[in-house]
């Protein structure tokens, strides 16, 4: 991860949601409800995070379910970054 803290704003909200609820597997609609983000924005962020390997994506014909990666290295990095204060 390039930065030394979690990305700010909406991406951070989504990452923090999954760090706080590591056993959650949810659709964009669900994550949007839990993070109070709009559905289109949530979809975009979830796809970006899936491309980065931070989230796993389970694709079906009707929806996509996202969950936190099981990659220990990424998880450790995220947990360290989450403990740091937000940077603008």
């Amino acid at each position, binding site marked *: 991860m390039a930065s030394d803290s979690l990305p700010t704003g909406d991406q951070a909200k989504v990452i923090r949601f999954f760090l706080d609820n590591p056993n*959650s*597997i949810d*659709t964009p609609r669900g994550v949007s409800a839990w993070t109070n983000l709009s559905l289109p924005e949530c979809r975009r962020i979830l796809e970006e995070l899936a491309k980065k390997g931070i989230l796993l994506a*389970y694709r079906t014909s009707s*929806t996509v379910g996202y969950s936190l990666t099981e990659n220990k290295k990424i998880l450790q990095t995220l947990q360290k970054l989450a403990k740091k204060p937000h940077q603008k």
Partner: protein
Amino acid sequence: MENKVLISPLDEKKLLEHLLDNHELRRQRILFNRFLGNPIWWVACRQNGRGKLAMHSKCAHIWSDPRAESLSCKKQILSALARHLKNPSPFQVECRKHRLATYCIPLIVQNTRLGVLCMSHIRPAMLRKAPVDLLNSTIRLLLTNIVREYELKRLSESVRPRAIALSTVHTVHRIINSTLNLDELVTRLAHLTAQVLRAKTCAIFLYNRAKVPHLLVERARAGGPAKPAKRKRALRAGEGIEGRVFHTAKHVIRKNLICVPLIDEDVIGVISLNDKKEGASFDIFDQEILTTLAEEAVIAIKNAQLYEEQKKVTLGAIQSLAAILGARFAHTRRLTSDSLLKITLAIADYLKLSEEEKQAIHYATLLKDAGKIGLPDEIFRKPSKLTGEEYQMVRQHPVKGAMIVQSFESLKPVAPIILYSHENFDGTGYPQGLKGNAIPMGARILSVVNAFDALVAGRPYKTRATLIEAMHELRQHRGTQFDPRVIEAFEHVIARPPIAKLLTGI
């Protein structure tokens, strides 16, 4: 009727802090300061709900009033507060030395005394009835609102994790129901279940009645050793924990293991998880989630099993029909149906077609001659050129074959492959003169394989070709009759075992 919530010492502390932080209280403080001559606002409470009353440590900081730290007559006021411990009504404490008063409002929530809100250094004359009554009502209302907010927050904190868990279960349900392939379904289920319950391993066992002795066979596993065992575990009913759960249809939950049965009308299998991550133990919440997942999984598994059964029945019927066709048209073929099928599916694999496409090609290969069933044998044995009428009859066979197959709902994807298997890549074929990628890929594959079989089988009017001659002929028509990609795939496939072995002797 007001809902009552139990208030613990921790709640008292938090409620008091909410009050001190409350924006509305700060606003009211500024308003009432005008009526009361800018008194010192502070709160007296007990540390951890016990011991002597003392000024709350955050007062001076939160209300930005450094005067609170050097309050005159503080001891006198605190003694008075102690004497009024059981007094629920507001009261006044006079400091004769400084001729000032402290007005005290007990902060009581559901018979629990959180503390006392005090306003010190007031000249007694300022304590007129009207503003004092208004102040009492305002504080009472504020306290009620703060308690309600706090209750809502607690409710949300208790409901939210369950709501998130429910949403997770629903999402898992959608994911596992998106496939009718049993192997894919149970593999996904094992991975998802391990993730939801944060377990290191998850195994799914299904009961196999087909073989004797009846065994509980491990169909999927997530997690576990990097190199999984070559043979999947198989247990008898009653053997091991999984066997016991299967036999009794009752779950087992331990610190490092949880196992629940998969129950339809009978027990069809079990899901078993081991070793929760981060050294945690499995608990009743995990059991509830796993039971819910298992109930949903059973429906998906039964659907997939029924689908597999249906496929077997369909395939059995098709194979019977193919055997009849094979017997009727044996003289037009060199390769057996089985060999043709292997070549066709090998090409489909090479071209990375989907499972659905491969299945359609499989059935099309077996049924490709269905349309010839109404044609007289003489046409196929005729050594001379066909008449116009005879030629038209032969050209109709893909259309008739597609119509026969289309009448079966499950074979609808097969119809276009049979229908267009005589189209040419350059558009000069029949029945519709389709060109290039407009011809379904399955039809393009079948076209090559059919042509190869016809070449090596020979015809009454043409001698058999050797393998090399047949390949040469096919290459000659690459791009015109045949799709170049399919020719490339065919060349690749027949050059390697096991297909090469099938063609020895040609």
